[in-house]
């Protein structure tokens, strides 16, 4: 399984020792990643092997039931399966056969482990192997854990990409250096980055996950990996195991983050500094101007970030450095010290960090600090609003295109909106 202890041998790059309190966590489990992954990989079906709770989580987190027949579902384990009246593997085979018959366009089936499947030690690896044999070559079968006992929210994507990394074809021995951008990005952002890399003369460039499972990019010792998301510890490790080198960089949020991130690739591919400046100049200017328009609204505002997606340190860095906000606390479900080294280096010193969560005590801290804005999950937002604290749903940060130059203004605007709304409303007490 994919446990979460910090990587051995990694030096502690963090500027501070985070506060670690053991209490109730208020974060989604990794299953929730499926909500964006199934939109991204268009010929994949994500089959959760779990309980009614898992199915209910997916439907509640996906909000309104917008997709007629989404490319995900839950094989719900029932009493007779547990009582040994039915063989779980046979049952799973039956469910999968029916599913694939109904959805013949599916090229990749992804079995997703849940708490129940893991507690009863249902071996999804074995199941995936067997199903792969049964449904080859039409359908490839993968598996990963999205369970709440192993993963939080975005770690589902991390585990999925790690599984995908193990499936990638090996690059040819003498393949020239190539760039792989790992981490699901909205298509529009992906296309923007691709144009910039082209202009810089960096290539070939691939994206993981790819939009179709048939287009899995090759990986090998000449592959340079740029992480587009900060939560990809397992995926990075799996890509390294395939010989790839992970480039160190901050994450592409805001003008500064995007530039540093692109520069990491440019440096690895020997792009001349002058060329890099020339190619990125227009984007940098647009991003600075767009963020600048919102800066007055955010300057000096005190922001409290609850743990959610692991994007919190990058968001805080953006808010502090580009928008002039004051960060009260950065909460994160997990701090991957090595991948965050670039962010820690940029963050103003002295900001309190917390890793993991005791939600009740964290709320006490938030109430005591009375921030101007709390970035938090959907369970906490309305209660905080009712207490007079403006909030921003953290889930919007993973559902909205926010990376890259052209989205830097949108990113700032996300935080301005709740503040602007308060200024607009004349409702009385």
């Amino acid at each position: 399984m994919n446990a979460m202890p910090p990587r051995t041998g990694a030096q502690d790059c963090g500027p501070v020792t985070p506060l670690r309190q053991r209490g109730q966590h208020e974060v989604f489990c990794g299953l929730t990643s499926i909500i964006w992954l199934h939109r991204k990989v268009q010929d994949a079906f994500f089959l959760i092997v779990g309980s009614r709770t898992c199915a209910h989580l997916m439907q509640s987190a996906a909000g309104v039931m917008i997709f007629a027949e989404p490319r995900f579902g839950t094989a719900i384990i029932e009493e007779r399966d547990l009582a040994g009246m039915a063989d779980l593997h046979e049952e799973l085979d039956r469910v999968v056969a029916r599913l694939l018959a109904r959805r013949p366009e599916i090229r990749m089936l992804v079995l997703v482990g849940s708490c129940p499947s893991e507690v009863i030690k249902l071996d999804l690896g074995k199941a995936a192997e067997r199903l792969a044999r049964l449904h080859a070559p039409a359908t490839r079968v993968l598996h990963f854990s999205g369970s709440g006992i192993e993963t939080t929210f975005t770690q589902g994507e991390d585990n999925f990409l790690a599984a995908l990394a193990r499936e990638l074809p090996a690059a040819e021995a003498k393949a020239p250096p190539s760039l792989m951008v790992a981490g699901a990005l909205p298509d529009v952002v992906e296309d923007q980055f691709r144009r910039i890399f082209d202009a810089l003369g960096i290539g070939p460039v691939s994206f993981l996950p790819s939009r179709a499972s048939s287009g899995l990019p090759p990986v090998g010792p000449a592959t340079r990996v740029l992480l587009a998301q900060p939560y990809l510890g397992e995926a990075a490790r799996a890509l390294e195991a395939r010989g790839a080198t992970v480039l160190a960089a901050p994450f592409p949020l805001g003008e500064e983050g995007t530039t540093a991130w692109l520069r990491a690739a440019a440096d690895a591919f020997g792009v001349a500094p002058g060329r890099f400046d020339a190619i990125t100049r227009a984007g940098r200017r647009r991003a600075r101007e767009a963020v600048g328009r919102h800066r007055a609204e955010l300057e000096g505002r005190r922001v409290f970030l609850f743990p959610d997606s692991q994007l919190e340190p990058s968001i805080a860095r953006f808010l502090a450095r580009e928008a002039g906000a004051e960060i009260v606390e950065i909460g994160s479900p997990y701090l991957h010290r090595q991948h965050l080294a670039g962010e820690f280096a940029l963050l103003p010193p002295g900001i309190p960090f917390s890793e993991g969560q005791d939600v009740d005590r964290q709320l006490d801290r938030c109430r005591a600090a009375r921030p101007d804005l709390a970035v938090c999950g959907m369970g906490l937002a309305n209660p905080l609003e009712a207490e007079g604290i403006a909030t921003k749903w953290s889930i919007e940060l993973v559902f909205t295109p926010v990376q890259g130059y052209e989205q830097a203004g949108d990113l700032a605007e996300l935080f301005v909106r709740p503040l602007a709304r308060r200024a607009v409303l004349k409702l009385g007490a």
Partner: protein
Amino acid sequence: MQLTVWTYEGPPHVGAMRIAASMRGLHYVLHAPQGDTYADLLFTMIERRDTRPPVTYTTFKAQDLGADTAEIFKIACRDAVERFKPEAIIVGASCTAELIQDDPAGLAAALALPIPVIPLELPSYSKKENWGAAETFYRLVRAFAPAPQRPAPRVVRPAGERSCNILGPTSLGFRHRDDIEEVRRMLERLGVIVNLVAPLGASPSDLARLPDADFNVVLYPEIAGTAADWLKRNHGQAFVSIPPIGVRATADFLAAVAGLAGVAAPAASPAALRMPWYSRSIDSTYLTGKRVFIFGDATHAVAAARVAADELGFAVCGLGTYSREFAREVRAAAVRYGVEPLISDDHLAVEDAIIAAQPELILGTQMERHVAKRLRIPCAVISAPVHVQDFPARYSPQMGHEGANVLFDSWVHPLMMGLEEHLLGMFRDDFEFNDGAAPSHLGHAAAPVAEAEDPTLVVLARPVAWTGEAEKELRKIPFFVRGKARKNTERFAVERGLQTITIETLYDAKAHYSR
């Protein structure tokens, strides 16, 4: 193992959570992994609740398994009691904790907490949300209104001085918030004292006062049925369980309550009850015989069928429920309307049944609302599972006299939009209109079905071919009867062994079926 995409009900511990969130002074300590905390958003987002629901989750992890999950549970219990100072706690396990068998009941008992602890056994792998809510409410009632040691016969209060409890309304219930107001007003107008409303708004100590009432009013049998049965057996309280949804059911309800209260049933309905006149008024004529498909929890589905058939003059063309526990009631009602009852929690089966029934109106849950949108059939929501839209800012009960008015408005207005589409169809050949122009309330994002010219084309494989001309003629028929016309014509053609449908066939079939 069952493959599911969307579910009508959550797991049983979500039902327990709804009871905890309904009450004051009660806290729920749930042994569960972190992802299960998603359930908080049901309350804070869907219902716009302004405080967190009173639930503490232990959020144990894989690394805790086999080591100290039991200890984590005990700490969570102690901390919750200290922090939230509830009058009582309920303790239990989610699906995952059920598998690790930590015995929350025993662990909590061992803590010797200063307050009552009510343990819950909610089998996650066989039961569902409503059952969990009913079981939790029943356990609480038993615990706080225990059966008397030596049952004494009930002292009968004089007629006109009797009181009742209103049982069943909960957090996340479909319009429960407003139903309580409406039912309370009606009861008070009758001269019946309301002793207690539970679980919504009651505290554990309030439950101890339940036996003070002379009888019970069960608004939602799915939630309060078990408790009401128990109260009857152990405290001798009779109950009324007619949901007062619609004009006739409200009258029946008031008559039954009046009987138990020993007062006269109201002779006339209040002037504010506009629904009967609206339904008789001339522009309602076009409602006659509209085919309506009904699906929801048993209480709302059965009640809706009666209103639809008897009070609006619709033709019930489908009736079903996802509440297996109440299948019997729905089957009985289906017989009355001559339809095949649909007892299923598989939304795809419900969708298939809707397509086969070709309704002109769907009364369903949020799930059916989405089906309706895709098939471009007017729809009104009548039952949980709920959506943020089901908590309107305005007063909008389903029950009682005002409830009947609300039903008229909310079921008939989608059809008015249908009439607008009819006009759109009439002006099709006008240069400003075309068949692709959809009314704006259907949204502009082109759904796959909406892209096709005619939804009935996509939905079913056509058994016989249509000539281009016949097809064109068919399009001239208003869209809301077009599906039926198409189906009838095809049946007519198939029965006569025709290979193609011409304009002639179309009108032959029309004449045949209009006889």
